[in-house]
């Protein structure tokens, strides 16, 4: 009784609120475990490991900032991986924004059979990444692939695609554009939210289709563009499976490690994987993960800050 009274005095919560709090924590309990075990703990642990040398065999050994120093000042492959990732991200985000908005505009037209068309563009993105990468490895085969055979029909010599260091990243960007169905759906949803009244008003004012698109459609879907760009940045830094599969396929043709030819498809995800799980450099990999996280954070914040100038939210600017 006394304890209970003391508690009631200390806590500002009423008995009913305490009961509700207990219920709320009970229902969200599974996720509290998930948040602590798979988010909070790993973040803290990874920060700790990033200052150590840890190979899983012996306990972590504190090495100060040397992992970060080695990465930034001595590891040229790290910079290669970072450069490749920026190249891929730039290509797939810029190309994807143009292509996906274009396709969404087409899909937003009111013509018959639209459901079928939408399915056509969305289908590639449900194909398992492993299968998709394999399909493109064969489509872009230099001698017997589909694309070079088509180019051959019109007398154009096709490049060696994945096997050429200059073309391997553009090839992966093509694969990335092929699987951008989710972004198309998001743009399409944004397009369908644009109030019809705006177009009618513009039409009365004599605006043609092009100026309607430029002055109404594009500003109205800028929030969707922002969303897709931010997601694109995060996904580029997690890019792994397709590059790994293409690397596996090429490895048996060209020899050498995954990430070839000449490290041209060594992305940050692959490089981190190699250090963590091939060389068991857990500390080094953790430091890398933190640098990537900070880069993603900086890029995302940069995009968000710039968004004030180009993103239009309904009536509230």
């Amino acid at each position, binding site marked *: 009784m006394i304890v209970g009274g003391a508690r009631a005095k200390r806590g500002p*919560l009423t008995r009913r609120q305490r009961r*509700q*709090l207990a*219920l*709320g924590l*009970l*229902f969200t309990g*599974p*996720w509290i475990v*998930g*948040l602590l*075990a*798979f*988010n909070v*703990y*790993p*973040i803290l642990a*990874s920060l700790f490991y990033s200052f150590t040398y840890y190979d899983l065999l012996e306990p972590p050994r504190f090495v100060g900032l040397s992992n970060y120093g080695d990465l930034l000042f001595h590891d040229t492959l790290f910079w290669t991986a970072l450069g490749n990732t920026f190249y891929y991200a730039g290509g797939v985000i810029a190309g994807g924004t143009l292509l996906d908005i274009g*396709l969404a505009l*087409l*899909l937003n*037209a009111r*013509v018959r059979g639209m459901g079928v*068309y939408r399915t056509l*563009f*969305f*289908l*590639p993105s*449900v*194909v*398992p*990444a*492993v*299968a998709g990468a*394999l*399909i493109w490895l*064969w*489509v872009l*085969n230099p*001698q*017997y692939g*589909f694309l070079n*055979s088509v180019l051959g029909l019109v007398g154009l010599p096709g490049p060696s695609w994945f096997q050429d260091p200059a073309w391997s990243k553009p090839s992966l960007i093509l694969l990335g554009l*092929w699987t951008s169905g989710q972004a198309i759906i998001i743009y399409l949803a944004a397009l369908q939210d644009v109030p019809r009244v705006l177009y009618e008003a513009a039409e009365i004012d004599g605006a043609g289709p092009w100026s309607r698109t430029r002055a109404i459609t594009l500003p109205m879907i800028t929030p969707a563009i922002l969303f897709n760009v931010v997601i694109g940045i*995060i996904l580029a830094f*997690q890019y792994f*499976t397709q590059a*790994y*599969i293409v690397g*596996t*396929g090429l490895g*048996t043709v060209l020899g050498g490690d995954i990430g070839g030819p000449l490290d041209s498809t060594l992305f*940050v995800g692959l490089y*981190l994987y190699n250090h963590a799980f091939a060389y068991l450099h*857990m500390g080094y990999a*953790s430091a*890398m*993960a933190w640098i*990537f*996280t900070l880069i993603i954070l900086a890029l995302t914040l940069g995009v968000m800050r710039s968004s004030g100038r180009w993103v239009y939210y309904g009536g509230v600017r």
Partner: protein
Amino acid sequence: MAASVKAGAALSRASARSLRRYRAARRIGTHLVLLLCGGLFMAPFYWLLSTSFKVSDDLFATPTVWIPTRLTLDNYAQALTFVPYGQYLANTLYISLFAVVATLASCSLVAYGFSRLEWPGRDLFFVVTLATMMLPYPVTLVPTFIVFKWLHWIGTFNPLTWPNFTGNPFFIFLLRQFFMTIPAELSDSARIDGAGELRVFWRIILPLSRPALITTALFTFMNNWNDFLNPLIYLTDQSTYTLALGMQKFVGYHSAEWGPLMAAAVVMSLPVIVLFFLAQRAFIEGITLTGIKE
């Protein structure tokens, strides 16, 4: 007066005709562009399917065999026997279905806590939950692996299955959004009748949320079926491989055998493509249902 009206009518009829013609031309133009782009998106599928039925002579023939006339099922027979396909399929199904059940159970309970219950700190906790969706996985990958290594779970299915019982922020968010649309009166009247929260959850909220639950189940199934990185890290024994992982090994050993490889790609993609077509209907059902509620 009457004449000018007649002339005006004729004029507007003429302009209506030209407008109709212009619209028809635009419609046909739209169809042509859509067909062209759609064809480009579908071309890799055609190449995949036609290759999977080609005899090996036709694969590397010059000129290119665009439409194979000699069809064979050999590639499929090889793809299904080179690797222990049945074993991989069983493993993938076990992991994916486990994940579906565990995700549905955990995420619906948690989403109920975030939407149908009022408690101090709820909304702050929910914002933290949303923030974890932005967390890039590389930063959690290494410590999570180390935890599972301590538990001696490496090489077992456990790292891919049990964690699903702790929920997933994306599906918690999705289900929470859906639960929010269910009128509060429904649960209030049940509570007055003496039902506990679990009973309200089970008898009222879940039955009304079928579309959102189906969407969650389908996405979870597809994510697990398609997942490559986690099986690559955690499954070390060949007998535990999933289809995605088994396929990567297959690529490594048989990289030039495009016939069997494409057959394997078809076999792996077919279930998710079928699911996608079934899911389309579920999605539309879900959207219309939420539309009615609002």
